[in-house]
């Protein structure tokens, strides 16, 4: 049940296409990203992303007389700082009808038209990916990793975990979308695995997702069948060991406590994965699953909304004792246990790399859930864990 198109929305909780495009491009470490727009548009992604960003910081006169000169000035300044330069247009410059391609003359410049009104974060991320023009090099060994986005609190952890699993299976890492050098996007390996299917690159042959233990097992079976040099058995062995530990911990929890009643919020694939994992291992009752973005195809039980008033209604009606989502949802029902799944995550220090994908991702998710639920029981004082 998606938000009706072009209907107003209270306190929308998800960033715009411009932010998505910037988050995509800023992942490449040799690419200088320029936000072509006002300081107001610049400050938002600049405050969220842990990457250097540039801006044209347009003023009214430049809208009247043209923005090209200002853009050229900023490009000249940043051109020496990185090997490549990308320009992301914001709403007003996007409708001025200027030929910014002229500015790019004789330059290695990537122009991405991703005004906020184009849509949500995913729309901008995909527009940026398209502008990169990724290509497969059929002779390149390895497996690509996609779904990486700097806005994601699990970004670094997912890269590390996907790399670890591929290495454990005897494979090599191809291109990471979007991280590392930009040039690698033009010579991607023929096979790809994903850490977040909502941000799938569409590059190479899709071999599956790394969200959840079953998905990891299936993906590595598929890789073994299609890609030379991949041995799935070390990964399968690790999954079996991980599953034993999970079952033991969850069984111990369920001996004393009722399963949690859970409300899950996040990008579609993340939210579905979290809900399925908790149902499977903790017999959790699912109060609701809400997706920030529009699923590629309608999914049972998942409501798409970014409207905070609707989300508040669902939380109030569902009375979950565990919320998996962002700080927004946490503020609606602060008495519930909380596990972060989607930005923003406020009031917590998140220094080390946390995966959500892969085997370690599932272990970490269940660690966080079990600890949060036990903390809740302890603070309520009615029941204490063994």
């Amino acid at each position, binding site marked *: 049940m998606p938000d009706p198109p072009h209907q107003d929305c209270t306190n*929308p909780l998800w960033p715009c296409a411009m932010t998505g495009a910037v988050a995509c491009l800023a992942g490449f470490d040799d690419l200088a990203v320029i936000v072509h727009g006002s300081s107001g548009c610049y400050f938002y992604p600049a405050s969220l992303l842990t990457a250097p960003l540039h*801006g044209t910081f347009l003023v009214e006169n430049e809208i009247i007389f043209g923005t090209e000169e200002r853009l050229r000035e900023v490009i000249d300044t940043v051109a020496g700082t990185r090997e490549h330069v990308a320009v992301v247009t914001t709403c007003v410059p996007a409708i001025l009808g200027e030929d910014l391609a002229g500015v790019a003359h004789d330059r290695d410049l990537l122009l991405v038209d991703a005004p906020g009104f184009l849509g949500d974060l995913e729309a901008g991320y995909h527009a940026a990916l398209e502008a990169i023009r990724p290509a497969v090099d059929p002779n390149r060994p390895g497996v690509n990793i996609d779904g990486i986005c700097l806005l994601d609190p699990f970004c670094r952890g997912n890269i590390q975990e996907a790399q670890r699993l591929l290495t454990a299976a005897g494979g090599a890492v191809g291109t990471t979308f979007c991280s590392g050098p930009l040039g690698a996007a033009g010579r991607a390996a023929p096979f790809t695995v994903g850490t977040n299917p909502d941000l799938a690159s569409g590059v190479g042959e899709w071999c599956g997702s790394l969200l959840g233990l079953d998905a990891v097992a299936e993906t590595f079976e598929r890789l073994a069948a299609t890609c030379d040099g991949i041995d799935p058995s070390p990964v399968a062995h690790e999954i079996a060991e991980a599953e034993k530990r999970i079952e033991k911990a969850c069984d111990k929890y369920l001996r004393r406590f009722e399963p949690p009643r859970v409300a899950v919020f996040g990008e579609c694939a993340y939210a579905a994965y979290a809900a399925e994992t908790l149902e499977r291992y903790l017999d959790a009752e699912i109060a609701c699953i809400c997706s920030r973005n529009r699923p590629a195809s309608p999914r049972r039980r998942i409501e798409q909304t970014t409207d905070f008033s609707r989300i508040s209604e669902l939380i109030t009606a569902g009375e979950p004792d565990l919320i998996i989502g962002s700080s927004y949802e946490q503020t609606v029902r602060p008495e519930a246990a909380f596990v972060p799944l989607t930005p923003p995550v406020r009031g917590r220090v998140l220094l080390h790399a946390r995966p959500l994908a892969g085997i370690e991702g599932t272990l970490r998710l269940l660690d966080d859930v079990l600890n949060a639920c036990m903390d809740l029981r302890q603070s309520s004082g009615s029941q204490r864990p063994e």
Partner: protein
Amino acid sequence: MNSMPSPSNPSRYEGCTLTGALAVVTQVRDAACIIHGPAGCTHHNFSLLHATLLGNDTAAIPRLISTRLGENEIIFGGEDALERCIARVHEAPPAPAAIFVLSTCIVETIGDDTAAVCARGWETPVIPIRTSGFLGGVFQTGFVGALLAAGTLAEQGSGQREGVTLIGEKNLEYDVDENYAEVVRLLAYLDLAVNLRFVRDTDTAALSRLGTGAFNILREPALREVGEALHRRHGTPFIDSFPVGLAGTLRFLREAGKLTGRDTRDAVREEEAYQEEMLAAFADLAGARVRFDRLSPLLEEDAAAGEVVAELAAALDLRVAQDGIPLPPPYPAPVGTAGVRRLLHRWRRAIRTNGRRSF
């Protein structure tokens, strides 16, 4: 990191009029704010406000409604979407006591007549605020525009004048309530109470008290335009700034006394003694070699903050030198004696951690 910091055109970096206006009108708790533009503009600002509110231990969530314009409305116009949105906000509970309608840079560019839609005879006051992003202003422009717009909800001043009205507190600053507490402490010397915080954590009914204070205190001189407008409308005199620094705090007491016909000599003496006692607690800083770097090339220098730095360096016998320990310059300038004390704790921490060998 950003490019082209150009002091010759600081308005490039001074943010969005929409953010400035929302910093004011979201503090009218029973009002709704419609932001006419793409959903992203509302999200960016909601995210900022949410973070700020959490940082200030405030649970109240402002109600921001986006008309959520898409590509179609950008091409064919968004006035119909705005009209539908205003109607829906009227219908959807909780009924707002007032509706502020804020425009964005993109609707300004496509030429939507937001004010005309707001003037279509709605049941509830629907107040347009022209906040066209970076077109026609910066953060401060939006802030001032929103104060003036919120002021239209107040009736013309009448009745007995009592208490003091605070104008334009910086709702996004981390120590906004600590600064308020300091002003309350100082006013208590003169038996003056706060009549209204215009606009912080209030409601539409309370705004009717806007013209009933004995005098107004502006948060900073940049709000003189608002002070003068309120003086014209309600006849209320004003002090043009919260007390800043040590001498500024004493001056503030004298000005407040002058406006209310009170003798301030005892109050000033008492506060002076308090300031001396406070400074004595930082006597160990005497002789430290320090420097004050510019906070950011994007920010304009704050003249009042510069005066406070000079005042404190002299009072504490700090040696300002190029190779000194870098200290955080006050931004904005510290409010009252309590604000100075908090600043000095931060300076002492920096001196202790960065430069023991300089002693």
